[in-house]
């Protein structure tokens, strides 16, 4: 049976160690361009068979990171499924990543007030075990490996073809891949 996740990608794992929702909001719901609070936070709506949900979360994380993370690196993160955690309206909106899939499932939560945001955070803290989704750097790197091997044009545009990596993300992927392989 098809299930749905509404995934809010995390910024700092340590933010969720805090107990004050206001401090969590200041980090996890901070607008990248203004530094202010974002009452229309971006989310990704993933609809799939249960077995496919987690791989799609990894895909979205990888695509989002490759579009926005600076400096580039495949890194472990803590995401949250916010589906049902708020009554805020979910509005599909054009994503701004470099990937068609992530853009196609992008949406915004239309929070009406700071209090509504803080209530959402309180719910996520309370239901953390059921809602938190941990994605490791190796998950992201393995996904990039697979897309490069498949000659995915969106990924090769960012990291270059396998063996001829280019750009910031290409260099980062090569570096992390070498270190991972040495460690393994």
């Amino acid at each position: 049976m098809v299930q749905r996740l509404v995934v809010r990608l995390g910024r700092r794992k340590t933010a969720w160690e805090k107990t004050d929702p206001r401090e969590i909001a200041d980090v996890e719901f901070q607008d990248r361009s203004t530094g202010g609070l974002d009452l229309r936070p971006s989310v990704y709506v993933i609809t799939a068979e249960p077995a496919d949900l987690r791989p799609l979360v990894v895909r979205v994380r990888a695509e989002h990171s490759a579009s926005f993370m600076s400096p580039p690196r495949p890194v472990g993160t803590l995401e949250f499924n916010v589906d049902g955690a708020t009554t805020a309206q979910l509005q599909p909106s054009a994503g701004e990543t470099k990937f068609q899939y992530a853009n196609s499932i992008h949406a915004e939560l239309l929070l009406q007030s700071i209090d509504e945001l803080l209530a959402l955070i309180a719910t996520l803290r309370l239901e953390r075990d059921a809602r938190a989704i941990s994605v490791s750097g190796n998950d992201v790197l393995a996904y990039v490996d697979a897309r490069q091997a498949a000659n995915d044009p969106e990924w090769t545009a960012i990291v270059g073809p396998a063996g001829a990596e280019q750009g910031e993300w290409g260099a980062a992927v090569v570096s992390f891949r070498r270190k991972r392989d040495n460690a393994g």
Partner: protein
Amino acid sequence: MARVNSAASIEGYLSARMLARPRLRRVETPVETPAIGASLEPQVLEDLSEEKFVRFAEQDPARLVELIRSNSLLRPALLTFAAEAAGRIANTALVVGALLPLLGHADPVVREGAVYGLEPHLEASLEAREALRSMVAREPSPGVKAAVNDALAILD
């Protein structure tokens, strides 16, 4: 830093930011506009953001490092992204000099950001590697410890 971290100043900040924030693309959404708090911090009036930190790293690294070094001017939620953005600066000595002090910051969010900023420079900086190795045993935050271990694991 204690003043910035207090609940009162955070609420004042949150309220003020909602008023200060440009919302040109989003005017159709009704948004509560609480009154500006009485305890505005000086940095609230300066439009600093993650995207601006990244631009500083690329175009004016000295400005970014200056902001980080005067970290009492940045609340932890901004300082963590300033630290991460500093990782883009090519001058390893400059980055390491600015970020090592943040590894001892009281707020784990700042320490996590400092680890991310140092990560691209770990191969080039023995000082940074040793600093991260020495902090693992005493680091109380699981999130920071995980970030440090991830950074070091791929080097060892």
